[in-house]
């Protein structure tokens, strides 16, 4: 089986869903959209040759209330896309918007919750102080701030540990702090970067439950993951990225060919990976499993 060169895009929401007609007629605006995004990195050394294309012409839209999975093997451009959407990296060309505002405008992040892959928080602060700091940045009024922080701490079950410095926390507790900070502003869109990476089975289950709970509350979730089983469980639609290009986009069922029983099979086919023909694909199965 050779590499899939064309992008398979299936529209969302499907015709059977309630707001399909709104979407089709253009009345439902996407919460997040990327139009022809291209990101090039200049080589760090003079011997490095030309610019490296990390993302090439990515176009996608995420609609209110959906859980959107962003898949791809290592080096596919998932993190680069996240970096562009959060304003960390400017695109070389193309445009990305969140809630209609350009991603380079800080106000576009007012209704976003972001959970990074690993726990990157000020270790000298307590969870309570960290949440208060982020609450101030979101401009939550002082009268509501303490209540919101208490609610977030209760939600992630940190309890009395919230008054201890974060450096004393276990990895699981740090991940809970991450979830609490991502929810402190009651966001309408959650961007989760490999949220279950490095977590034990209980931690993974908790994150999965959280995503399902957010979905029930009508929140939009955009998350990247390697865990295809998890994606299959919670996602309405997925995008599959490979070597910086969008290879497929749509509801999981629509991406599967006859005879395929899991997303993993579809994923491997779409990125052109065949176990017996190693030359068909420049990536190893190990990088898919990591």
């Amino acid at each position: 089986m050779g590499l899939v060169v064309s992008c398979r895009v299936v529209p969302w929401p499907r015709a059977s869903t309630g707001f399909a007609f709104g979407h089709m007629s253009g009345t439902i605006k996407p919460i997040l959209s990327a139009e022809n995004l291209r990101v090039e990195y200049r080589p760090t050394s003079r011997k490095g040759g030309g610019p490296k294309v990390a993302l090439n012409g990515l176009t996608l839209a995420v609609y209110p209330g959906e859980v959107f999975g962003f898949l791809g093997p290592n080096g596919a451009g998932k993190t680069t896309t996240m970096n562009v959407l959060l304003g960390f990296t400017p695109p070389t060309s193309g445009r990305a918007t969140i809630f209609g505002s350009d991603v380079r405008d800080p106000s576009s992040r007012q209704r976003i919750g972001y959970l990074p892959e690993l726990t990157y928080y000020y270790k000298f602060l307590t969870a309570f102080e960290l949440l208060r700091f982020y609450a101030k940045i979101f401009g939550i009024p002082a009268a509501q701030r303490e209540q919101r922080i208490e609610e977030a701490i209760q939600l992630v079950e940190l309890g009395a540990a919230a008054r201890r410095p974060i450096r004393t926390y276990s990895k699981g507790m740090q991940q809970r702090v991450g979830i609490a900070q991502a929810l402190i502003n009651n966001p309408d869109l959650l961007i989760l970067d490999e949220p279950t990476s490095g977590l034990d089975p209980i931690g993974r289950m908790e994150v999965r439950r959280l995503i399902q709970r957010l979905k029930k509350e009508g929140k939009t979730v955009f998350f990247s993951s390697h865990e295809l089983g998890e994606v299959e469980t919670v996602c309405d639609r997925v995008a599959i990225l490979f070597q910086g290009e969008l290879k497929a986009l749509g509801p999981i069922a629509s991406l599967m060919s006859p005879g395929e029983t899991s997303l993993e099979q579809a994923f491997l086919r779409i990125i052109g990976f065949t176990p017996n023909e190693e030359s068909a694909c420049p990536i190893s199965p190990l990088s898919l499993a990591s």
Partner: protein
Amino acid sequence: MSHISAVASVVILEMIRRKDVYVLLFLTALITLALGAVNFFGDPKIARYLKEVCLALIWVSSLVIAVFTAARQIPSEKESRTLFPLLAKPISRAQVMLGKFLGCWLACAASLAAFYVFFAILSATREGQWPVANYVQAYWLHCLFCGLVASLTLLGSVWFTAVSSNATIILAFVGAMLVLGRHLHKVAMKTGGLAGNLLDVGYYALPHLEWFDVRDLIIHNWPRIDWDVIAKDTLYAFAYGGCFLALACWRFRRYAIH
């Protein structure tokens, strides 16, 4: 403004929870008190050498605090990746930079206040007088100096990737300006030619940090400086600090984070 003050509060909390300032304050007190125990010429009232040593230690400590607090802000946030969740919030990079500056400056001012209180007590026990106005002037000018150094260091921190190289360059520059700054014009006049012209440009373009050093005023109990001179010094510091911060914000906006 709330964004800037929130970032500043984290910088201050970090400094409070680190041991650097306490160690420097303890060392300054220890060295000064040890020297104070030595009774030169059998006259316990000789206090100027003690004031001079104590102020020199305070200046060195303040320089170390200002440079190292500011130098590690952006690079260490980038290295520990705490910058990612912060910039994923509705805050602009300019606000982050200004918050960092405000935090560094207030942290330096707070630690300087502790140093100056110690100095005032030491001086009063030896000389029996409290020239409060002189102390306030010296303290304010010292705070302005720290602010200028912090803004310059923050500018360096978005230019140089390593904290150590930035800190070394800034320390060398500040040391050179404190010692040689006032002589640059004279040297330029004597040198002449292109080198002389370049030195003259440096004399007029570089910030004269020595203008904020009024140690002699309080060591020798000279009359206080006119307040309009202090006001001009303040404007001078704000102008230079503002330029450094504007450049730092501009550079930080273009700073790729990935």
